[in-house]
């Protein structure tokens, strides 16, 4: 047996540096770098008439001021549209600095470089921009009317329009299936904007080496490899002359997957031009008004069902607010549309969305990426059906579940990765059974009645979801064993706190049979690994985890081959345990992996003891063979890629008990229970941490967080004073249970877990509040004031 580390709650190896203040985040680097600051538009929609920088020129320590006019070709071009889609007929992206029109408050207009950030901001404050104010387009339905345009050449403000239809097995379209159903309902749902809001904002730091003509860029990004390619292209540099490193990153949650940000192009360009190190670290207000938001949708639902609650037809029309630009395409509404079906087998489905421009911050994925909206829609629908039929809400869900023997289950749609939406595995009835038991579902009516007798108002709610995780196209892993017996693992994707250094080390240690301490892991550094996609869509463990496992298997195979030669044994009789390759059943016959690493390289200068020791094994190569045989490479290392045929589908179910105050309408979550299935667990402690964090963000989105825009397109709550992110006092204790249905699609049998926690929370809380109040809850988030208003409107 080799060392079993896979599946253990191993303590994290990243912690030591982070708890001693030795972590290196973006703004911890480049102490002597010049600082950049930006003049950003104070208007939601305006034409830039003139920029007067004269007053700023006297500022002590000023180095440079740049407007769009100053930018060279390519740098000045609109930023790339990353994920085009045929339905995105009117994709638009911003210029790195505004050219003539600004389309949201916060859009960068002028870049200032100075000796430090204080001075850069002094200069920025003295720059006068003359704007001609244009009519702002704010509010998704307002924008959809199209009476004023965000982009002159985008009629109706419609960037994309997509319809997907899955007819029933009898060939009936959703409309006819609904019309023919014994019961039908139609209603509208609203979800407001929130945002990823990592505690560390974005940031870029660039060093141009004039002698070497090379550029090293650090960025607080979720994808260093793609930032590198973007920078090389924009600056016209050969790819090998650009390296990008994601240092310690203080949370991402989606917003840092967008690339290149204007600053990721402009800061390196300025560093090259000035021949000086330049750094920009985003401040909190900048993050609110110039990065990205998500979630805002209006949904119109029509559903037809039978007496048991089986959904016979479902028709959903979505208005999706994507803000001023579409650099990330229409991934968010596509995910909403395709993940809406959840764990259910639906008769006929039709979904249509329009993705609409507004003069607000652009919308790109935030943890969950369109799924919280999808689940809100589907689960509110399940609750409405239950209420209409007078059935138990859990029972209606169970009636619609895909059964364990129906996998692989084809939902008949195209998923976000352009591949068929086929669920690989799961056990939804068992999840529901576990959840009901955990929260005490069946005993709740008695509990509720008892509380009511004492003047307390309780409600229970639940929500189910399926999450496509581990989207392709690929990730890679490189594993090298050096002559000191250490194992160096690298993968191109980045980390923002998920504990990749730990879980990837667990995988490598398990695969190679070495102690965990011998393994080191590097992520997100293009100097170590150049090909990667990035960290999003709950894909890191699935993609890089499997790639690293495959690379380890190559290394292991080679190590056994070399050791077999040295030990004069059959490789099939060898095992690796604790860093020692040995003959099974004969502990005497063994060779350390370190020695095998030396043996793997015919050049053996005796730089270390291990090399000296290896001489005792070195059989002379026959004179008629080259020292490195054909097809071989010197060194004990391996590289491999994992590229899945399609995504693997994790799932889960949450339930909550809430209490609402009969007088103040205050909403408290008394209990929160999670059943979660992400296939085989690599490190249960880390998975649980991911769930806790996700649920906390979900609670924020359900009860506290929203982006409040006024009619002029001003974000009224662009600070932590006014945007209410939950503190410890707002987040309930979260009870978790795991179900493990391994994925048949990948060697490790794992599924993604990063986003899961956040996905069903708004649906669950809405369900519970509705149960407590007996009032339909159809928009989230909900504040006590809004609940109070709902009661008043209902005459309570």
């Amino acid at each position, binding site marked *: 047996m080799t060392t079993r580390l896979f599946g253990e709650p191993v303590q994290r190896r990243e912690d030591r540096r*982070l708890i001693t203040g030795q972590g290196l985040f973006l703004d911890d680097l480049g102490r002597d770098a010049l600082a950049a600051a930006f003049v950003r538009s104070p208007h939601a929609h305006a034409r830039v008439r003139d920029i007067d920088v004269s007053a700023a020129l006297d500022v002590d320590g000023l180095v440079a001021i740049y407007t769009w006019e100053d930018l060279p070709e390519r740098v000045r071009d609109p930023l790339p549209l990353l994920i085009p889609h045929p339905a995105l007929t009117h994709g638009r992206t911003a210029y790195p600095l505004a050219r003539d029109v600004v389309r949201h408050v916060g859009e960068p207009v002028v870049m200032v470089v100075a000796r430090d950030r204080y001075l850069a901001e002094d200069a920025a404050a003295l720059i006068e921009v003359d704007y001609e104010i244009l009519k702002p387009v704010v509010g998704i339905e307002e924008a959809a009317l199209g009476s004023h345009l965000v982009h002159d050449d985008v009629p109706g403000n419609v960037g994309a329009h997509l319809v997907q239809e899955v007819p029933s097995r009898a060939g009936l379209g959703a409309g006819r299936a609904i019309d023919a159903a014994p019961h039908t309902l139609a209603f509208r749902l609203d979800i407001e904007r929130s945002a990823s809001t990592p505690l560390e904002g974005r940031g870029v730091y660039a060093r141009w080496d004039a002698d070497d003509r090379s550029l090293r860029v650090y960025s607080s990004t979720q994808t260093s490899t793609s930032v590198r390619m973007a920078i090389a292209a924009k600056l016209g540099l050969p790819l090998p002359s650009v390296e990008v490193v994601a240092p310690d990153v*203080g949370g991402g949650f989606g917003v840092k997957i967008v690339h290149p940000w204007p600053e990721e192009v402009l800061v390196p360009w300025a560093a090259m031009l000035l021949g000086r190190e330049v750094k920009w670290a985003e*401040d909190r207000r900048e993050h609110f008004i110039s990065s990205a938001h998500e979630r805002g949708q209006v949904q119109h639902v029509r559903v037809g069902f039978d007496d048991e609650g089986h959904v016979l037809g479902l028709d959903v029309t979505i208005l999706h607010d994507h803000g001023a630009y579409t650099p990330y395409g229409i991934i968010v509404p596509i995910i909403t549309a395709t993940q809406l079906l959840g764990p259910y087998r639906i008769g006929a489905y039709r979904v249509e969305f329009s993705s609409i421009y507004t003069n607000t911050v652009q919308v790109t994925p935030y943890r969950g990426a369109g799924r919280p909206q999808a689940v809100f829609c589907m689960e509110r629908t399940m609750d409405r059906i239950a209420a209409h039929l007078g059935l138990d809400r859990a029972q209606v869900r169970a009636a619609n579940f895909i059964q364990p023997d129906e996998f692989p289950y084809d939902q008949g749609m195209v998923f976000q990765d352009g591949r068929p939406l086929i669920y690989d595995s799961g056990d939804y009835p068992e999840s529901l059974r576990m959840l009901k038991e955990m929260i005490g579902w069946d005993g709740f009516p008695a509990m509720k009645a008892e509380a009511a007798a004492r003047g307390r108002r309780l409600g229970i709610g639940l929500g189910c979801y399926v999450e496509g995780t581990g989207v392709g196209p690929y990730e890679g892993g490189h594993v090298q064993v050096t002559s000191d017996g250490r194992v160096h693992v690298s993968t191109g994707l980045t980390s923002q*706190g998920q504990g990749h250094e730990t879980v990837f080390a667990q995988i490598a240690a398990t695969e190679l049979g070495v102690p965990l301490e011998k393994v080191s892991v590097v992520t997100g550094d293009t100097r170590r690994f150049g090909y990667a996609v990035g960290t999003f869509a709950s894909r890191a463990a699935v993609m890089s985890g499997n790639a690293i496992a495959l690379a380890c298997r190559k290394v292991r195979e080679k190590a056994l081959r070399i050791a077999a030669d040295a030990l004069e044994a059959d490789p099939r009789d060898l095992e690796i345990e604790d860093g020692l390759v040995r003959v099974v059943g004969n502990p005497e016959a063994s060779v350390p992996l370190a020695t095998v690493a030396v043996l793997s390289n015919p050049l053996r200068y005796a730089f270390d003891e291990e090399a000296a020791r290896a001489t005792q094994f070195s059989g002379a190569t026959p004179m008629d063979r080259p020292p490195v045989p054909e097809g071989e490479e010197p060194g004990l290392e391996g590289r491999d890629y994992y590229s899945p045929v399609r995504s693997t589908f994790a799932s889960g179910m949450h339930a909550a008990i809430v209490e609402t105050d009969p007088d103040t309408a205050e909403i408290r979550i008394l209990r929160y229970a999670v059943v979660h299935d992400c296939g085989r667990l690599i490190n249960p402690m880390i998975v649980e941490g991911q769930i*806790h964090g996700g649920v906390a963000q979900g609670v924020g989105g359900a009860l506290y967080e929203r982006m409040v825009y006024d009619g002029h397109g001003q974000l009224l709550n662009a600070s932590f004073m006014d945007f209410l992110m939950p503190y410890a006092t707002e987040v309930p204790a979260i009870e978790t249970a795991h179900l493990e249905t391994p994925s048949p699609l990948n060697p490790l049998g794992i599924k993604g877990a990063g986003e899961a926690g956040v996905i069903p929370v708004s649906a669950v809380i809405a369900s519970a509040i509705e149960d407590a109040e007996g009032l339909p809850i159809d928009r989230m988030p909900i504040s006590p004031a809004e609940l109070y208003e709902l009661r008043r409107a209902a005459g309570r």
Partner: protein
Amino acid sequence: MGEALHEIALTVNGVVREVRVPGRRLLSDCLRHDLGLTGTHVGCEHGVCGCCTVLLDGEPVRSCLTFAVTAGGHEITTVEGLAGPEGELSPVQRAFSECHALQCGFCTPGFLCTVTALLRENPAPTGEQVVEGISGNLCRCTGYQNIVKAVHRAAELAAEADATPARTGEHA
């Protein structure tokens, strides 16, 4: 024409440091960029997130709301000063790691300083006191549950350390 600079001396993690700063320089920037102690983080610069919390004469303060000049003559402890002289982790640091109370680690220095002060005031806090005690610090990653757990664990570890006089985990 440069800004007027003020000469200040402050004791940081037991060492006297002299530095010349403009009157408007924030203590957070002074620690991070003038003294190179980048363990103290800045998450909002308006006093809400608590990432920048350091101990000023033992009391937690938001270094983003404090001018460096006002810290002259005072004792400051940052996250870099929480471990013992030989680098042995304080009970609070150990507990955070043990309980998986950090993910990205950006908020962590602020929590560690806050909790260090909290447990010094109240070595055996109740559940409610713990939640209350950390309710001025934001964390976007952990959902707080493991942070709460870590505070209780730290209290336990500190109590054990006190019972074994040879070990003094923290010197802050």
